[in-house]
């Protein structure tokens, strides 16, 4: 007797993903896809693909998708949610998209308490353009525009997005997770599901920051890259809940 132990989620299309080996996007896509299926919201969800490596997310998520300008996801999400409050809107964004060029849109959609969900993938680098310094690149970390390592005296210090947003009244759920170990992947799934549930329940703005790895632009093997997540990224970006419903009550 055959027993099915693993299957493709209906939340993703059958288009093969073209992310690099070891990249976190594939896992994170799957977690979001599973969530759409499990919460039974896939057919009323509109996803927003960012500009960056995951611009191709519009081919991968099995729901209506839109691709806006770099960093403008939260503004587009705002426009969509206001005219289609019956739909579930999520914006999938990278660190350059969300925390650099789109910081104003991020902060103001959070401050307005828009009932949307943001999946924020922080891998501390601009992937698609070839490994330039991101607003979340760690001090000392090399990139193609910080070839000697990020010097905080010149380039400032990385931005901790969850901490920054937690000072606002608007967001109801903020959590930082990682996908470097099976245990963390399970926790990441829980957080993503909770973030979507918050929106389904009409409670307001939710954001999950996912610390991810970019072996290609970090010039590392996949294994080395998840080591860096544990040894360097998580110490600077502590995992945990920064704002929750319980706290709001």
């Amino acid at each position, binding site marked *: 007797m055959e027993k099915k132990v693993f299957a493709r989620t209906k939340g993703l*299309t059958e288009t093969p993903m073209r992310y690099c080996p070891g990249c976190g996007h594939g896992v994170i896509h799957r977690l979001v896809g599973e969530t759409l299926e499990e919460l039974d919201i*896939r*057919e*009323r969800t*509109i996803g927003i*693909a960012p500009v960056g490596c995951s*611009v191709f997310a*519009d*081919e991968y998520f*099995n*729901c*209506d*998708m*839109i*691709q*806006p*300008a770099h960093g*403008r996801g939260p*503004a*587009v*999400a*705002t*426009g*969509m949610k*206001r*005219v*289609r409050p*019956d*739909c579930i809107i999520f914006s999938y964004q990278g660190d350059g998209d969300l925390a650099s060029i789109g910081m*104003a*849109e991020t*902060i*103001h959609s959070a401050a307005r308490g828009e009932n949307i969900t943001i999946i924020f993938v922080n891998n501390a680098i601009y992937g698609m353009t070839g490994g330039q310094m991101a607003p979340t690149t760690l001090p000392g970390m090399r990139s193609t525009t910080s070839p000697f390592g990020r010097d905080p005296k010149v380039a400032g210090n990385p931005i901790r997005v969850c901490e920054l947003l937690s000072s606002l009244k608007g967001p109801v759920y903020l959590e930082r997770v990682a996908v470097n170990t099976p245990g963390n992947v399970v926790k990441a799934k829980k957080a993503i599901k909770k973030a979507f549930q918050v929106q389904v329940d009409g409670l307001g703005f939710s954001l999950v920051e996912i610390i991810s790895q970019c072996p290609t632009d970090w010039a590392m093997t996949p294994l080395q890259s998840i080591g860096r997540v544990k040894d360097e990224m998580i110490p600077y970006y502590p995992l945990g809940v920064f704002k929750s419903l319980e706290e709001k009550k």
Partner: protein
Amino acid sequence: MGEKKLMKGNEALAEGAVRAGCRFFSGYPITPQNEVPEYMSWRMPEVGGTFIQAESEVAAINMLYGASACGTRVMTSSSGPGISLKQEGISYTASAQLPIFYANVVRGGPGLGNIAPSQGDYFQATRGGGHGDYRVFVMAPNSVSEMGNFPRICYEVAEKYRMVTMILADGLLGQMMEPIEFDFEPIDPSKLPPKDYALGIQEGRSRRVVRSYDLKPGFMEKHTWKLMEIYNQVEEKETRYETIMAEDADLLVVAYGTCSRISRAALALGRKENLKIGLLRPITVWPFPSKILHDLASRIKKILVVEMSTGQMIEDVKLAIEGSAQVFFHGRPSGGIPTEFEVLDVIKKIYGK
């Protein structure tokens, strides 16, 4: 269609959009168009629509991108500096073929410039404005009545051809008051046919994607040619203009918007002195009424272009007539408003009087 009302141009613009079925507005304050968001801030909730004061013009136009992708009639408005910021979103919208409508109540520029009326944003409006190969359908009203009645035409063109449309006004048209009577009954947007591209509930249909890019080799070129074919159709079918006393004219004034009003006054003065002046007023500045101008220029050998700029539309005039007439120019940039007497003086000089 309702009683005659005395309205400010900006308010007529906002009310015209609402009557034409607009149910989503986002914008950011900038003089001289503030009456538009102010009006929308109470009018939108009244008709069950959405008003958002956005954090920036960039955010405002991208909110439109989202709301329009869901099939809603949307609007934003601004003035020069704010329109510059919106260009990113406008270009994306053009590529994604979303039918949005916006207005530029032009002020003096470049830079922060001033808040006085100007026509200095003609290039920006008629050349697309943002990056890439696209066009925007641009209407240039010259009265409060047209400020209120043109939004309906813009929405119809926007949805028929799935393109960006706009109203190019100026501070004078935005701030002045005139009687207005709407020439159409209010449109209930819920009664409009559903849009086959609109994102939303997917039950019973395949998923839809709205995107402004195509990285597959050759595909973007094909897409851009497809857009161009649409623009060619718009040029053929949607060009609008008005001529006044052009039949027997031996000098043709070409002016749009506020300048067309002033030129009409100059024409009336000149005709009293037996000067055979005619007027061509482009109502759409893109598409530009090149054909009629070309025809007129084969007979009328002297053309005077009057603009509240250092000379922008004059380029379209020269392109249209292909050297078949002599072109003169009178311009007042960045807040200068010509008077009818001033224009008449220029006309007399051309006649050698």
